[in-house]
Each structure stands twice: as structure tokens, then as C-alpha cells.
């Protein structure tokens, strides 16, 4: 599989405040995002996840090194629009990314900016709204919708650009459990049914469980990188970096410390329950013998 985003020796520091030294957010970072993959980025507050995400579509430019999107350098002015339409971005607060007070007008914003002909915009808007399951709400005012619905409108607004990759920066942080579920389901469908590359930044470990890849960020670099099973079994490392592990892993880890013979990589609730049931069964069998 080819890579859609490539970061080479990426360094970045925000402009320093007066009289202070610029503290780099990250230094010499190398990273690839494979086309069609579902990557979840986790890490403690302030470690630079949002900053990294903004490098992916040239909202921020590297202070050192390069970021390439489908081979285009993000610091090249000429291909700026090309990059932004390839990598769409959804932010935390849906209220602050919706521009119009009619849902369909908002979804049309990106294709309008790209100069897409009206008939084609219509098609894209309807398609995007249907994908996120908000078609019936196309004539509503966004401020009357729930948080989860608003966030799905924001996702539709990005989809209407027809990006190849969508980066979501804590899209569920402001939502209640139901809204969170709606949004996560939408994102998953995009990846599975449409083959869209997804980069999801989150603090909710449950959202990371069925990703293709989990990236653990911290101390200006990548602490761990691999499949959810590979990453979450490194409980000590994650705890040392102040990162939660999924509740299932936490449970298994504690039980294991108490002497139970359990695998740490049973991530989903079902797998976890099954592993514990099995362990209990072997225990009783052993005691009966």
C-alpha cells in the first residue's frame, strides 16, 4: 500500500513568546500514514497531537524537515488547495466549524470554494449528507441540532470536498455517549465502506480498539506504534506516559498481577469476557482434579 502522508525529519516549534525560548513540540519525527488505513493517535494533553494534525494539511508548516501529501510538499504554495482537498480536517468543537445557518449550505461550503459547478455541488452535498445519515436535516438550522448531529454535519462538510484522507482532532470530546457512538460509527463506515484513510486523535481508548494502527505520542516523539494489540499490551509504558489503557486491558492487567493466567490482548468487551471465563474454567477444572 502506498503512503498518503509522509513526514520526514519533521520538527516544529511555535513562535516563542517574548523573552522566552521556543520550545520544540517535536523534533526529527518520521512518520507515514498508509492509504486506506485507520490510524488512532493517542497521547497525554499538550504532547502535540493537534499540532501534528495541522501539519498534515498545511495549516501549520514545518520549522524543519518536510511533510508530503501524495508526494506534494506542504510548504509549496502552488499545491496548497490540492493538499487541503486531499486531507480534510474535523475539529473538536462542531459549533466553531459550521459556517452557515442552513445545513446544506454549510456542507456546500468546501465545493463552492473549489469552484465546483452547481449541479455537481448538489450531488456531492446530498451524497455527503446521506453518508453521515443527516439527509433529512438538510434544511435545518445547525444550532438546533444535537452535538453529535452537528459533528456529523461538520464531517459531511469535509466529505463534500471528496478528500482521500480525513483527520479528526478529538471529534467526540464534546459529545455525550450517544453522540460519540454516532460519530465513531460514521467514521468507521467511511474507512471500511469507502476505503477512506482516517487519522483519529482521541482520548477515548475504546475508540482505538479496532483501529488498524495506534500511534502513541509523548515527549516530542512516538512512544509506541503498532496494532492495538501490540500497543495496549505495553501497559507499563503507557501508564508511565500518563496514558490510559482500554478498560478491558486495565482489568486483565490487574487480574494478571494477582496471579491469573490471562492474555493482555483481549481488547473488545466480548474477547475480554471470554478470556476471563476461560481462565475461571481452567481454574475450577484444576481445583477439581
Amino acid at each position, binding site marked *: 500500500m502506498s503512503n498518503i502522508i509522509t513526514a520526514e525529519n519533521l520538527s516544529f516549534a511555535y513562535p516563542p513568546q517574548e523573552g522566552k525560548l521556543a520550545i520544540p513540540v517535536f523534533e526529527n519525527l518520521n512518520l507515514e500514514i498508509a492509504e486506506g488505513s485507520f490510524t488512532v493517535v493517542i497521547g497525554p494533553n499538550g504532547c502535540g497531537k493537534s499540532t501534528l494534525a495541522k501539519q498534515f494539511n498545511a495549516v501549520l508548516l514545518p520549522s524543519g524537515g518536510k511533510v508530503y501529501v501524495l508526494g506534494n510538499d506542504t510548504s509549496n504554495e502552488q499545491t496548497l488547495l490540492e493538499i487541503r482537498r486531499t486531507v480534510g480536517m474535523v475539529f473538536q468543537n462542531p459549533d466553531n466549524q459550521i*459556517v452557515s445557518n442552513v445545513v446544506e449550505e454549510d456542507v456546500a461550503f468546501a465545493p463552492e470554494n473549489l469552484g465546483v459547478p452547481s449541479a455537481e455541488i448538489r450531488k456531492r452535498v446530498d451524497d455527503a449528507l446521506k453518508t453521515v445519515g443527516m439527509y433529512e436535516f438538510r434544511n435545518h438550522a445547525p444550532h438546533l441540532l444535537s452535538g453529535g448531529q452537528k459533528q456529523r454535519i461538520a464531517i459531511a462538510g469535509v466529505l463534500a470536498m471528496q478528500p482521500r484522507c480525513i483527520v479528526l482532532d478529538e471529534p467526540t470530546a464534546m459529545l455525550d455517549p450517544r453522540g460519540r457512538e454516532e460519530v465513531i460509527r460514521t467514521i468507521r463506515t467511511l474507512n471500511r465502506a469507502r476505503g477512506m484513510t482516517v487519522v483519529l486523535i482521541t482520548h477515548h481508548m475504546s475508540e482505538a480498539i479496532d483501529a488498524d494502527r495506534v500511534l502513541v505520542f509523548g515527549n516530542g516523539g512516538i512512544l509506541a506504534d503498532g496494532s492495538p494489540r501490540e500497543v495496549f499490551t505495553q501497559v507499563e509504558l503507557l501508564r508511565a506516559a500518563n496514558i490510559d489503557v482500554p478498560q478491558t486491558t486495565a482489568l486483565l492487567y490487574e487480574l494478571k498481577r494477582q496471579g491469573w493466567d490471562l492474555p493482555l490482548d483481549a481488547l473488545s468487551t466480548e474477547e475480554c469476557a471470554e478470556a476471563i471465563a476461560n481462565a475461571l474454567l481452567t481454574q475450577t477444572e484444576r481445583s477439581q482434579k
Partner: protein
Amino acid sequence: MLKDITLGQYFPGNTLVHRLDPRTKLILVVVYIVALFLAKSFLSYGLVLAFLVLAASISHIKPKALLSGMKPLMIIIVFTGLLNIFYTTGDDAPIVNWWIIKIYKAGLIAAFFMILRIMLLISGTFLLTYTTSPIALTDGLEALMSPLKKIKVPVHELAMMMCIALRFIPTLIEETDKIISAQKARGADFETGNLFRRAKALVPILVPLFVSAFRRADELATAMECRCYHGGEGRTKLKVLKYGKDDAIAFLAGILLLAGVIVLRTFGL
């Protein structure tokens, strides 16, 4: 509490008037206002009133809705009326002549026309906002003013600003409500004290409101950039404004109104 505020209220509908191109409606309102200011006699005022009543009845907007919109402006209307009554002098003998107050018949007529004119003016513009969504209105204004781009008027930017302002009014009102509740919970008192104290009590509301508005603006700007916003250049529209047969009829009605008023005026009727 603050949620009840409505700005440029819009009553969605699907009548002929609702369906008209926003540009047509904007132009018609201008024609209507010109006709109103050219009107001089009972007959011509009657013509303008008939035009308004016709438009209102086609659009299913109730007279009550039009009149209720006038409530906040009642003081101005009454005050203008009184001024006209007391300050117009006629040639004939005053009807009332008491102390320093002299009221002439001409004054009563002038006041009547003035009040009628203001009320017709307000209801006409209200009818526009009642039947046109703010977005359509913005689109219409942008299209009508686009020739001004030639003399470097930032028409697209103004329209965009208006659109975003409309979008964020409900959000900011909601936020103000929240801040007021939060400050009340901390023991802030907005209801007692003299005017000065009450004005001072507003500071802890306005400061967080402004801080949050700036943060929102910053995030919105980033989100817009991420969606490829780069000014009005090369921009297309989801809904292209198009004049239809209805618009031709509406324009015809507008021309008839204006012609009627001008004819009545030249013949001094």
C-alpha cells in the same frame, strides 16, 4: 431568556412571494419605498397600501405579525405624529387654540400621512425579511451589489461576514445565557442597584463573552481554511439565483405601482 430575541425573523413558507428571487424582492422593496415617498394623496397612499395588502395576503403573512413587528418602534411613530400635529401650521383657523397649543387641520392630515408612511415603510421591509431566509437575502444583496466590485468594494467579504454573523447570533446568545447563569451562581447581582451599578455588573458577562468570541473566530478561520476557503475568487454557489416567470410578474406589479403613484402625483390627485 435571551433566546426569545429574534433578529430579521423569517417565517418559512412556499408561497409565490417566498419563491421569488431574493433580488426581485430587494428591488421591489426599493420600488415600494420610492413609491411611498412619492405618494401625496389619499388615493396614492391607498394604492401603496393595496400593494402591501396584496403581497401580504399572497404570502400568508398575518396582519398581526406585521403589526407586532412595529411594537418596538411605537414610541418613534407616536412621537413623529405628535410633532407633526403641533408643528404644522395651516392657513385656516386652528381647530384647537389653547394656551400655546394650536392645532390646525393641516397638522392632523400631515400627522396622519406621516404615521401611515412610517407604518407602511416598516411593514414593507418586514414583509421582505418574513418571506426571505437570511441566507437568500445575503445572496441577493451580494448579487445586486456585485457591480460595485469594480470600484474595489469588498462585496463578497461583506456578504460572507453577514452570513457568519447570522450563523453565530444564536450561538453567542446561548453562550451569554450560560455566562449569566454562571455569574449568578457565583453571586453576581444584575437586577438591583442604580443604572451605574447595573452597567458595571455587565462587565463580568462581556469579558468572557468577548474572549470566547475571539477564540471561536480563530477556530472558525482555521476550519474555513481547511475547507479550501480562499476568498471570493473562483467561487461557485450551491443555489444559483435565477429569475423566473413569477419574477417577471412581480416586476410588472412593481412598475404598475410606481407608474400609478407618479401619474396620480402629476395630476395632483
